[in-house]
């Protein structure tokens, strides 16, 4: 169904996609946990290049008549899913930052007071 040249181009694109992800993973710029969804997406893209019939069949099952529309809908749904995951990650991190900041402020107060006490004690000793 897909012309051979296009198939090759798309394959190269998907390979580049994987290389970029692996590069980031290697450089530890991506957490594997959050990358899994991107890897799964890459695998699905790869499958669709060689077996476009699967997509046609799946879109048909959903009751969407036009293949291209079906593809776009699937893409948008997938991107929205990733965005939602990201929002949830951001929210969770915000909660963690909040606890960190609060604990830090309390620790800072204790250190400040301890330093103050030590200073006083050395002052006392010096005056004696």
């Amino acid at each position, binding site marked *: 169904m897909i012309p051979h040249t296009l198939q090759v181009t798309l394959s190269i694109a998907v390979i580049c996609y994987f290389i970029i992800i692996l590069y980031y993973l290697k450089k530890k710029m991506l957490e594997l946990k959050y990358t899994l969804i991107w890897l799964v997406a890459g695998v699905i893209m790869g499958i669709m290049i060689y077996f476009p019939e699967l997509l046609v069949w799946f879109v048909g099952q959903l009751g969407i008549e036009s293949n291209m529309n079906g593809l776009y809908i699937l893409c948008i749904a997938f991107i929205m899913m990733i965005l939602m995951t990201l929002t949830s990650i951001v929210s969770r991190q915000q909660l963690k*930052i*909040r606890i960190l*900041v*609060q*604990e*830090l*402020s*309390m620790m*800072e*107060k204790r250190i400040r007071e301890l330093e103050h006490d030590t200073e006083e004690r050395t002052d006392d000793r010096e005056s004696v």
Partner: protein
Amino acid sequence: METIRKELVGKMDESKKVLIIIPAYNEGDNIEKVVDNLITNFPQYDYVIVNDGSTDHTRKVCRERGYEVLHLPINMGIGGAVQTGYRYARDNDYEIAVQIDGDGQHDVGFLAQMIQSMQKEQADCVIGSRFVEKEGFQSSGVRRIGIKFLSVLGWILTGVKVKDITSGYRLVNRRFINIFAEDYPTDYPEPEAMVITAVHKGKIIEYPVVMRDRENGTSSITLKKSVYYMFKVTLAMLIRRLSFGVRRQK
């Protein structure tokens, strides 16, 4: 050293340990008056300022005057700041925590009576309310309608009537210090905190207080933000109520 410490601890046990939480974001001009008043006139209460990442001279003022202060390195919003106070109260075994605004709106003179009525009525939470006696600063008309709406919403959701639901002058007991230390709403927290208290089956009473208008600075809720405020708070209250729905059945 050890005996002095024991004496101190013994003294603290006599009266209930009370902590006043004062969230302050860029309140450099107000904070001195508020805290000096506390130190001279109400030495029986402990206090802690939570400096919520202020960009003005709040930090400097606190250092020069030697105040009890927690400095948050980044701005966390009023909810995050107040929660820091509750965590501090929890970790230092306070029996009662009071939150007041850093701008001098709330008169600490009412606190003794509020604590008394809390003990008398065995309440978990006392809210200092402008609208019970209708004295002092009453806020503008539009704002009052908003507060009324939230108050009715809170009543529908929880069956508890709180007239001044946005009042930031409230005290809670040990049980709710622990609850709020773990779980406190982020921004514009007051109405949502009321829902949390109610769904945990805490007894809420309102105590009539007189509030002053702010002396310096402006309220954190400008007209522009109030639409967002109403929307966000309404939604937050609804979600709070829903997420506790199952637990409440038990």
